[in-house]
């Protein structure tokens, strides 16, 4: 049996808090290095073999993305389509009381207060890469618990094959929902085996703090090997079904956003390449990794699946 070391973020790669807060110094050095290497590569680009460059760059470290970026650069169209809109328009968003309904093909359908939904599980910190379909990425220390925990608790029926997640629908609180930008309420879904994967989590916090509304408070999903839009924020409904659920972005542009939406550097978005990404805070782009660097853990979910067709 081949035992491979997962391409996970190792604790040794994480910036210590003391250094991390010295972002200014870090950026100055990184920026200067970037500029210097840009100048060098401008002259030498033709001689560099792309393969070599990629292997070198794969050893790039994953630094935590600053809290400020994580909480002000967001795609959460319910609060507006600009990246800065959610942080502004989600101020005062009411997350208490909050009810989550679990329904569909499940032995124990129920409505939970969000506290009761979380309580039975032990919260843990998960530091994940986050790759947006638009070509940027972050590294975020989430606080949450495995989806599998919840799924085991509510016991889906044998006929259940998919899980559907739905965001709150409340145009009064969510100004973005007043325009038909997407098919509200935001709906996403996973295959049941994907949702059961230990990397898939429900997050309730980040950086050791309770989630802010712009990040999907009080409860959101995080599926680190998929593009960010597969995550559902401010969840009010979880439904188990035997049919593949419709999903918001797939409704909007089926040729651009598929159901699986696995991070894949080899399958381009129709309008841009997915081969590289801009890590927020970094001057140079870095190569995008297959399954966002979680291939060792998740690729078994997709044996026999044509990832080019099922983007």
């Amino acid at each position: 049996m081949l035992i491979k070391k997962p391409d996970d973020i190792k604790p040794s790669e994480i910036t210590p808090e003391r250094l991390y807060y010295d972002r200014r110094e870090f950026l100055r050095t990184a920026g200067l290095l970037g500029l210097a290497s840009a100048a060098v590569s401008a002259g030498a680009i033709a001689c560099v073999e792309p393969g070599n460059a990629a292997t070198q760059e794969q050893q790039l470290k994953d630094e935590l993305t600053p809290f400020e970026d994580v909480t002000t650069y967001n795609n959460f169209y319910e609060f507006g389509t600009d990246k800065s809109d959610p942080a502004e328009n989600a101020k005062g968003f009411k997350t208490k009381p909050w009810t989550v309904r679990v329904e569909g093909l499940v032995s124990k359908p129920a409505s939970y207060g969000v506290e009761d939904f979380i309580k039975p599980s032990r919260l843990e910190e998960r530091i994940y890469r986050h790759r947006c379909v638009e070509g940027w990425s972050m590294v975020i220390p989430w606080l949450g618990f495995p989806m599998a925990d919840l799924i085991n608790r509510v016991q889906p029926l044998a006929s259940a094959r998919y899980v559907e997640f739905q965001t709150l629908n409340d145009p009064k609180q969510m100004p973005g929902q007043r325009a038909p930008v997407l098919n509200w309420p935001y709906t996403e879904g996973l295959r049941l085996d994907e949702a059961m994967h230990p990397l898939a989590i429900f997050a309730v916090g980040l950086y050791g703090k309770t989630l802010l509304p712009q990040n999907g408070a009080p409860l959101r999903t995080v599926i680190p090997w998929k593009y960010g839009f597969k995550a559902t924020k401010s969840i009010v409904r979880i439904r188990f079904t035997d049919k593949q659920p419709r999903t918001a972005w797939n409704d909007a542009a089926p040729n651009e956003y598929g159901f699986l939406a696995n991070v894949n550097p080899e399958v381009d978005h129709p309008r841009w390449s997915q081969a590289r990404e801009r890590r927020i805070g970094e001057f140079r782009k870095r190569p995008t990794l297959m399954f966002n660097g979680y291939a060792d853990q998740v690729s078994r979910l997709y044996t026999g699946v044509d990832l080019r067709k099922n983007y």
Partner: protein
Amino acid sequence: MASWTPPRWLRPVVFAVSLLPALWVIGAIASDFFNGTRLLGSNPIKEAEHFTGRWVLRFLMFTLGVTPIRQTLGWNWLQKYRRMLGLFAFSYAALHLSIYFFLDLELVWGDLWADIVKRPYITIGMAAFVLLVPLAVTSTAKMVKRLGGKRWAALHRTIYVIVVLGTIHFWMAVKRDITLPLVFAAIFAVLLGYRIVVWRRKRQLAAMRTKNREPVMDTPVSPGFSVPSSQFPAP
């Protein structure tokens, strides 16, 4: 008002003001990366691309606005600013393209080619830029003379195609929210519509004058009969 001459200082002021967005965005990129400021937010290079792109459309809008404003309000002095505004549109397009190629694509020619060939919105944007180049090159008084007024004017009517391509490029580039592309499209529709109206009125006038000049005869006028429009001063 028609004969009003702008004060001498106006020209350098317009020039300096037009330059401000470019200076700001270049300074902001440098500051964000070297000083750790957040002037352009979390993703400065993307923001710089979008920022300069919007300024290209604004300067195209200003350039195309000159003639309608001049004709309807009689501000003839504006005419002298048209070339400068047009050249700023071109300069912002060059800056937009430079940020995209140097900072976003990081000088990877293969990626540039793949983008141009595979992604229609890039193809369209690039076509718009390529069409802008001859207009910038022929913007000098010398070139107007060399080409002759009529040919020069014909060449510079490409600007109508360019604004259409530029708006389509913007429209296709946004992910979902098309509010701003719609605003630009509406403004350009007005600016181009104005020209269509003027052009049609001119034709009607010419036709009417032709009719009035028709000699009173029993024999029908041959279909090819017309008075060269150059005999009439433009309305």
